[in-house]
């Protein structure tokens, strides 16, 4: 039973980690592209 519960929470935990990493990556990319548009010559 604990194995089942552990598996459920592990899958959820992995997804939350992945979604957090994706958010961080997107924010970085958005900042980079914004800077690229605001200062096209840099």
């Amino acid at each position, binding site marked *: *039973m604990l194995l*089942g519960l552990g598996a459920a929470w592990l*899958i959820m935990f992995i997804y939350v980690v992945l*979604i957090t990493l994706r*958010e961080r990556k997107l924010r970085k*990319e958005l900042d980079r*592209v914004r800077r*690229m548009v605001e200062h096209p010559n840099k």
Partner: protein
Amino acid sequence: MREKIIIGLAVFAGALLAWNMNTIFTKLPDELNQGAIYRIIYFHVPANILGMSGFGLGMLFSIGYLVTKDLRYDALAASVTEVSLVFASIGLATGSIWARIIWGVWWAWDYRLTSWLVCWLIFGGYLMLRRAVDEPNQRARFAAVVSILGSVNAYISYKSIEWWTTQHPQPVLSIRNGGGMAAGMEAPIWWNVLALACFSAILVMVRMRQESFAREIDTLRRMAHAQ
């Protein structure tokens, strides 16, 4: 505003889940034939309910996109489908662990398990397809078609335990005329559905924000190329 809603939902869902876990693990007796392992049902069933209903909701948003061509519907469909796939994965994993202990095997190729696995693969393919197509409208159109096909399969999977004889147990919940649970043992399933639905809503909101970031990045890139 979105952050406040997310925090409020997280607090509510966390408290509800903690209270319900206490009920499940300390107040409910073991099942007569299965012993303690039957408690997996309190996570397996809610996860599959959220998976199936999420795929159906994703299909409605996909149809919304096909009708209106509004990419916000596509973003909603993608977000709901991705989160639903996580719950479907939990449903498959917990079901398999239960099967190993009760049936003695990890998997049985019966109608229910096979159709649900096919459904999981279709929606896994849906997410891969979204990464493979760059043009947003084309991506949304292709994804909508896959979502509709996958949801039809999800409905077949839902009904399979009524239509065919399966290794998987027949319906036990009272709303499906199952009546297979003693009084007081069914309510925690629905409380868990509510708590996990709140978590699901949080994840969908976060994914929606990411979709909006991705759209903004795409627009800015086009502007940069046009300069």
